[in-house]
């Protein structure tokens, strides 16, 4: 995995709360056996009309979506199913960080393992971001800080080991396999 230290980008805003993984990538697209190309189906039911044409009102179809790498969403983003296709679809579209006041557990874990930053912030910061779509934000993973164009800066919580792996491009499986002797000892002692 490529090291990930910093994301500087304009934001896209989807203000809805409780955006579940069925919205991020509907189940009918989960018959794939690879991780590739899911960005086309990201938010498919909000993004396309019944005839398959793009819904011009949806933020991902607007010109300003191009080149934006940060998604700001309402409370409790990523709830629902464990499908890792959700972060795969976001990453394939070009999203590198999601900001909300609350991010669901399984989605958060899946995101960290794929280089998508799940960032939780306080209500005031979230409120400002929701009110200012397209804001240029700076996410500094080394310092665990999010800086707004106003100059305001907040720290965000991020699990220490996942952060270490992201900063250094380390695959967690490599670390887990380095503990195989511990796992063998555990099995022998049961």
């Amino acid at each position, binding site marked *: 995995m490529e090291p990930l230290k910093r994301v500087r980008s304009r934001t896209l805003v989807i203000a809805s709360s409780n955006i579940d993984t069925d919205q991020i990538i509907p189940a009918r697209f989960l018959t794939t056996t690879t991780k590739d190309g899911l960005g086309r189906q990201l938010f498919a039911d909000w993004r396309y009309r019944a005839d398959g044409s793009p819904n011009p009102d949806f933020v991902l179809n607007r010109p300003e979506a191009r080149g934006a790498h940060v998604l700001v969403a309402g409370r*409790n983003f990523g709830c629902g199913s464990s499908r890792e296709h959700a972060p795969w679809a976001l990453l394939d579209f070009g999203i590198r960080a999601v900001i909300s006041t609350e991010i669901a557990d399984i989605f958060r874990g899946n995101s960290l393992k794929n280089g998508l930053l799940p960032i939780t912030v306080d209500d005031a910061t979230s409120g400002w971001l929701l009110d200012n779509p397209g804001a240029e934000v700076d996410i500094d993973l080394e310092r665990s800080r999010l800086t707004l164009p106003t100059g305001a800066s907040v720290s965000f919580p991020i699990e220490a080991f996942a952060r270490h792996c992201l900063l250094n491009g380390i695959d967690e499986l490599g670390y887990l*396999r380095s503990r195989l002797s511990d796992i063998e000892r555990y099995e022998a002692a049961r």
Partner: protein
Amino acid sequence: MRTLFDKVWAAHEVVAETPDTPAVLYVDLHLIHEVTSPQAFSVLKSLGLPVRRPDRTLATMDHSTPTSTDQVFGKVPIKVDAAAKQVRQLEQNAAEFGVELFGMRDARRGIVHVISPELGATQPGMTIVCGDSHTSTHGAFGALAFGIGTTEVGHVLATQSLLQRKPKTFAVNVEGRLRPGVTAKDLILAVIGKIGVSGGTGHVFEYRGSAIRALSMDERMTVCNMSIEAGARAGMIAPDDTTFAYLEGKPRAPKGAAWDEARARWRTFVTDPGAVFDASVDIDASLLDPMITYGTNPGMVLPIGASIPDKAGDEAFDKALRYMGFHGGDAMLGKPVDVVFIGSCTNGRLADLQAAARILKGRKVAPGVRLLIVPGSQEVKREAEAAGYADIFKAAGADWRESGCSMCLGMNGDTVAAGQYSISTSNRNFEGRQGVGARTLLVSPFTAAASAVNGRITDPREML
């Protein structure tokens, strides 16, 4: 003084967590299905790794598999090409890596969270994972069971372990007796309604109290199944004589002296008196009514006789009601129904079908209403046929199918059309969950069956 969760966690800690590193947690049982495993097997192949413990790995196919008998038993091919490919991929991966697979025509196939308990593979005190968020179901046996993503599926295949931070604990105390016609499904919907869809985030639930102790194993599985709908990755119930009676004699449960030894050990998996939880909620079961959702997440739920609240100006709330075609102030009772689905890992077990049969016996599905009844496993199917439930369903005009996830998530050909109202015993009423534009209302099997008969949302107590 430790909680049930603390005990199971401690018994599986290979390496304890530190500020810099998560714990290495050992996995006793890894369940696999066709949708969330292909990319994990690909990682193993690219690294040249074997499945480390095939003896602790069990695969089946349930999500993308069709439920029509002709397609399952190969008289006609699986209609969805991508689904057929996924099924073949799992067959190849299982053969190549030596993993036991209950394939399409296997008599033991079914929804992954239904088959493992009925085999007796799910046991108290275990750690169980699967690439599916409803893995929380197995917590009904006092196991620590939770859903994982596909990267983690690869981790478990390669090492039989996971990197995990220890979650917090949350006591869900449910005292009192459920009234007749009020079920485990209504109980868990009420819990989710009370604490909200993210109320359990970061926590593991333990369901406790006299109302929980009184539930059968099928009912306890319904409760634990929906823990994730309140944000909790896992929900547990301490094992007791109900648990042991269910497991005794199951194909993969311990036998003879090993059974006695196991049962004695399992009895220790209870929360010590005085152990402290990080959070708690109290529910009085005796006050509950049959519940029904009216919005687009399981926390938007009401007693069936109630009216939708009026929250004009709340954008998320308005959006949900627009999707559902409902208005603040509407009564739920009497609203028309197009499709009724009885099945899923939440309510696809024998007790659920028995409840549906109790209502449907001697009655007919209302004209114009489609009732789809899908057993949770082939074993449940055989039992329901032997008990005469299947005949009752067919006589009522229901469509009786082979097992699978079916209309719960509409990725296998079983879908609800745009705009239609689906009364469903499944677990998620998200937008589009049962088909693009489908409008899902979550209920118990009693309420689903009663509503199918009337063609309108119906309080099942008038038919019991």
